[in-house]
């Protein structure tokens, strides 16, 4: 059996390894090593836990069996999942962290002796508060992530669900969570603990249903943050350094990603959380639609334009992921490069359904990461480029964000696609994007619309090049 001091040191080491794991992600070269540090930290934490308990009887075997079952399922998912489904996968994983936190809190509540927290009905006040916070946040993470998962998977409609009195109801539930926690701490009543869990599940559900599909990058980052805070809450209960450090790291990581995503849309965090975006604006902007002339073309025209270009910038968006067009796109780019045409990729911070979604898909299609640029890095290059090839992106290219203060997306940083000599816009129809706003770019003189499935169109262009 490991002494308390030694195990504390090992937990600290694994916390430090987790910091190094995140540190490694600062560049693709060091990232693989970072992931290795993470795995090492996890192995240390688990091994130390076994050694410090020092119970290697039947229970140990059962634990290993459950560990193995989970591990096999996890490994199976990790190898099978297509890269386009990463947002769903991450949302699903968040829900599991949340539920695991809830289960650990329940176990600690039912059997506090095992965790040195006192006895049932007489749990130390501090521990009970920490436990309640961990359990509540875990439950919110769980039900919120399930909704996010269902929305991303398309099982549930991506459009926001709003009803009258939504915000007062949410506020009421949040207040009652605090009140119940207070009474739970003074009475130690098990019933109150279950009620606390139930309404936390409910509020997680209610918080996410009004948020629309395009805001998913923020939601996923936010749930990532919650899963961290839940882990930290449990870490305080267990007085475990590795858990506290990790919870804080993950919590702040998710918070920063949410911030970056909100900034990418020029919206405040509360604006996104309060939800309903995309449902209300559609009516106001749809009247002047359909009347303006649009130039549309076919693969032949597009190939002609690109063949005569000397530089092409590709703007991918969620539509590329839906159509699974990343490989076809790479083949098209290869052909362009053979003709000595300079090609680069421009990625908007909120393109796709989660932070960095497009980068992963392009990496999957063997696009070297040094050809892929962020908004600030590449935005000035559009003026000098001959062709912009917009595939599956929409709102992030809408010049209205710069010109029309009335527009709901006014002020959002957008890619200056319209400055290119010509714009090729692959899209299935003229329908507005998730924000529900008509895109002025469709009607510009130098825009050629290519109405087709993104993958099919890209393949056809390649044939014609």
């Amino acid at each position, binding site marked *: 059996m490991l002494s308390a001091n030694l195990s504390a040191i090992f937990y600290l080491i694994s916390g430090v390894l987790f910091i190094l794991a995140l540190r490694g992600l600062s560049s693709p070269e060091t990232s693989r090593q970072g992931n290795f540090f993470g795995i090492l930290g996890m192995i240390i934490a688990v091994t130390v836990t076994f050694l410090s308990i020092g119970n290697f009887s039947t229970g140990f075997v059962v634990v290993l069996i459950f560990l193995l079952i989970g591990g096999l399922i*996890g*490994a199976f998912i990790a190898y099978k999942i297509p890269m386009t489904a990463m947002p769903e*996968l991450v949302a699903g994983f968040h829900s599991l*962290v949340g539920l695991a936190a809830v289960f650990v809190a329940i176990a*600690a509540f039912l059997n506090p002796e095992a965790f040195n927290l006192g006895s049932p009905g007489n749990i130390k006040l501090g521990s009970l508060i920490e436990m309640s916070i961990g359990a509540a946040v875990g439950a919110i993470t769980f039900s919120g992530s399930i909704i996010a998962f269902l929305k991303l998977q398309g099982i549930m409609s991506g459009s926001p669900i709003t009803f009258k009195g939504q915000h007062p109801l949410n506020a009421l539930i949040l207040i009652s969570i605090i009140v119940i926690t207070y009474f739970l701490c003074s009475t130690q009543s098990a019933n109150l603990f279950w009620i606390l869990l139930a309404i936390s599940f409910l509020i997680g559900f209610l918080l996410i249903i009004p948020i629309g599909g395009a805001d998913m990058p923020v939601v996923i980052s936010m749930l990532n943050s919650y899963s961290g805070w839940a882990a930290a809450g449990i870490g305080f209960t267990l007085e475990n350094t590795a858990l506290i450090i990790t919870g804080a790291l993950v919590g702040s990581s998710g918070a920063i990603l949410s911030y*970056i995503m909100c900034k990418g849309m020029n919206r405040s965090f509360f604006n996104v959380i309060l939800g309903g975006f995309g449902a209300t604006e559609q009516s106001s902007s749809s009247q002047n639609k359909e009347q303006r002339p649009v130039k549309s073309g076919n693969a032949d025209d597009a190939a002609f334009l690109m063949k005569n270009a000397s530089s092409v910038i590709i703007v991918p968006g969620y539509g590329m992921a839906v159509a699974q067009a990343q490989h076809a796109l790479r083949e098209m780019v290869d052909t362009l490069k053979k003709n000595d045409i300079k090609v680069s990729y421009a990625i908007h911070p909120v393109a796709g359904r989660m*932070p960095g979604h497009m980068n*992963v898909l392009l*990496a999957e299609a063997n696009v070297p990461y040094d050809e892929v640029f962020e908004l600030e890095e590449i935005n000035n290059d559009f003026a000098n480029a001959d062709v912009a090839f917009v595939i599956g992106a929409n709102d992030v290219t809408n010049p209205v964000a710069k010109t029309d203060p009335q527009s709901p997306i006014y002020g959002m940083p957008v890619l200056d696609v319209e400055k290119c000599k010509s714009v090729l816009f692959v899209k299935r129809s003229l329908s507005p994007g998730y924000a529900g706003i008509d895109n002025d770019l469709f009607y510009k003189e130098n825009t050629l619309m290519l109405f087709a499935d993104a993958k099919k169109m890209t393949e056809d262009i390649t044939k014609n090049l």
Partner: protein
Amino acid sequence: MVKKSSFFPVFIAIFLLFLVGAFAPESFMNHFTVFVLSCFIGYMVIWNVTASLHTPLMSVTNAISSVIIVGAIIAGLAGNSENIFNTSSIFGFLAISLAAINIFGGFLVTQRMLAMYKKKKKDK
């Protein structure tokens, strides 16, 4: 403008910290120190993560937050020798499986993603 708006949150933060210091038990303070400093480390480290790796960042944070398995193992092993399946340890066992899905799934899918990030070949 930035200075004006950041003054208020800082003030609130100091006030909250004061409340914690005034009412929390002593053992809590050590952990709380670790927690607050870790938040700052997280803040510094995450800003250095390149935007193109944000998806792997999420999957790896997912995996490491499943270190909550530590609590699950303690709960799972807490049953007495006659009956290892009491209610508390069953929740522990279930949590072990859930966390294990995340740990294995999270690290492996991160590995898979990171293996795809390649630099331009020079000989071309």
